[in-house]
Every structure is written in structure tokens, then in C-alpha cells.
């Protein structure tokens, strides 16, 4: 399994053929990196993305095919033949959009109130673990499931770390909260399934 993030995405922009059609790669761009990839792959100017501030709050939801972010992310996923995970930014609203070209999922559970450098790296690392577990355990649609799981775990960890550190939050605080986040999510999942 291969996850391409950060400056690795600039390499993909310059050498699109090295991942095109691969199927097994996950790309994790933020909005700026997504715009750059979009331009390299489609040759078009910036894509239109959803303004989440005008949308009702969501936790995890399948996005309808006429949602602007869904259109853009699924098209890039189809053209590259990869799974695309468009990461949150404050300006675009707090929702991750994940697509493999045929299915698009949005994750909008609470995260950190503060952005800081390195959370994206933690996300890439978390997905590298969840994707291996998903594939090894023969979970259906493993790349999509791994991305959703990674998003939920890192968001919860960021939320827990932010409760404690507030505006002093840095990426290592999120890293330290990963284990607690996973525990809370598992307890919630078990509670829901036993109801």
C-alpha cells in the first residue's frame, strides 16, 4: 500500500504517470495541494469546492454526486485511478472529503479548533496503519474504509488534545492523544452495536 502526502504530491504533479491507474495509492492533499494536482491532471483552473459553512453539520455521510466537492474529488480520483483524501482547512470548512471515483464520503466530526503543522503527517501515518489492517482483514473497499477510519481517529485525537492544550496545541499533542482517541471510538462503537 502506498500513501502520497505533502511534497510527494508535488512529485506526482510533475510525474503524473507514476501513479496514474495504480488503484492502490492513496493521495492526501490539502486544498492547496488539491488545486495544484487538479491543474496538473485536468489542465483546468481551480475546481469549485463545497462551502461547508452553508451546509448542515455532518459526522460521516455519503456525498451526493452533485455536491461540488464530491464532483471535484471523485473526478480527480477517476482521472488518476487513485483514492483521494481531501483534507480539511479552516477556510474551506471542517470536512474531509474522500473518494475513489465511484463513492464519495464526507467526514465532519469535531477536530481541533486550532490548525498546526504536522497534523497532516499524523493523518498519513494513521492511514498507513489502517489501510494495512483493512487489507489484511479483507475489509470490503479497504482503501475507503481506511481513509474514513484515519480521519475519525485523527479528528478525535485532535479534539481531545485541543480540550487540554487549547491554543498551545502542537502536532506532538495530537500524536499523544491517538491512543485515547482510538479507545473512545471503540467504546462508542461497542455501545452503539449493543443498543
Amino acid at each position, binding site marked *: *500500500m*502506498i*500513501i*502520497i*502526502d*505533502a*511534497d*510527494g*504530491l*508535488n*512529485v*506526482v504533479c*510533475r*510525474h503524473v504517470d*507514476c*501513479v496514474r491507474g*495504480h488503484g*492502490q*495509492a492513496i493521495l492526501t492533499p490539502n486544498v492547496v495541494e488539491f488545486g495544484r494536482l487538479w491543474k496538473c491532471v485536468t489542465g483546468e483552473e481551480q475546481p469549485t469546492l463545497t462551502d461547508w459553512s452553508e451546509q448542515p453539520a455532518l459526522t460521516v455521510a455519503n456525498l451526493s454526486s452533485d455536491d461540488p466537492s464530491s464532483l471535484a474529488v471523485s473526478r480527480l480520483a477517476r482521472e488518476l485511478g487513485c483514492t483521494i483524501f481531501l483534507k480539511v482547512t479552516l477556510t474551506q470548512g471542517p470536512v474531509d472529503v474522500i473518494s475513489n471515483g465511484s463513492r464519495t464520503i464526507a467526514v465532519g466530526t469535531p477536530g481541533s479548533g486550532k490548525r498546526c503543522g504536522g497534523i*497532516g*503527517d499524523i493523518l*498519513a*501515518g494513521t492511514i*498507513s*496503519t489502517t*489501510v*494495512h489492517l483493512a487489507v*489484511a482483514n479483507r475489509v470490503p473497499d479497504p482503501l475507503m474504509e481506511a481513509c474514513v477510519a484515519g480521519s475519525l481517529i485523527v479528528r478525535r485525537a485532535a479534539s481531545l488534545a485541543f480540550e487540554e492544550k487549547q491554543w498551545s496545541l502542537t502536532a506532538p499533542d495530537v500524536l499523544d492523544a491517538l491512543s485515547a482517541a482510538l479507545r473512545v471510538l471503540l467504546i462508542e462503537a461497542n455501545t452503539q452495536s449493543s443498543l
Partner: protein
Amino acid sequence: MFCTQAAGIPIKSYSPEIIVHPVLKAANEDIDLGTNQEVWRPSLDAILPKVTQWFPALHSIIIGPGLGRDLFLADQLIPRLVRKAVEASRT
């Protein structure tokens, strides 16, 4: 973790538990980029197997965080490594 020679010691010093392979090279270390393939080809041939030999031991590979925009890495080494990683995860 695979990184350039210069990054190896700082990374290992901050996080001694990480297994660090400082086998990559950047243009600003000792590779003259030039347009002549003969200049960088030997470096590629020497570096690539030092990374790919570990692929069978890995569950997943992340490419990008901390990579930087060095031209030898971005245009020569990493695209080839991505292709190798892609081939390896198909099997």
C-alpha cells in the same frame, strides 16, 4: 524511515526508536544535477536498491512528509521509487 544522509543524524537524535536508513541523496549534497544523464544515473542505480530491498518487509509506504523539493529527489529519485512502490504493492 528513509531519508537523506544529512537528515539521518538529526532524526535519529530526536527519535532514537525510529529505524532510520539515511540512504537518499539530495542535489545539494553531492550530486551534480546537470542535464547529462550520465552524471546522476550512477547515483540512482546505487540508491534505488538500498530502498527497494526493504519493500518486502514493509506493510505500507508513505511518500512525501519531510521530503522537501530538492530537484534530484523530486524529478529523478522519487518518481522512480513511486513506480517501484506501486509495482511492489500490486504483488
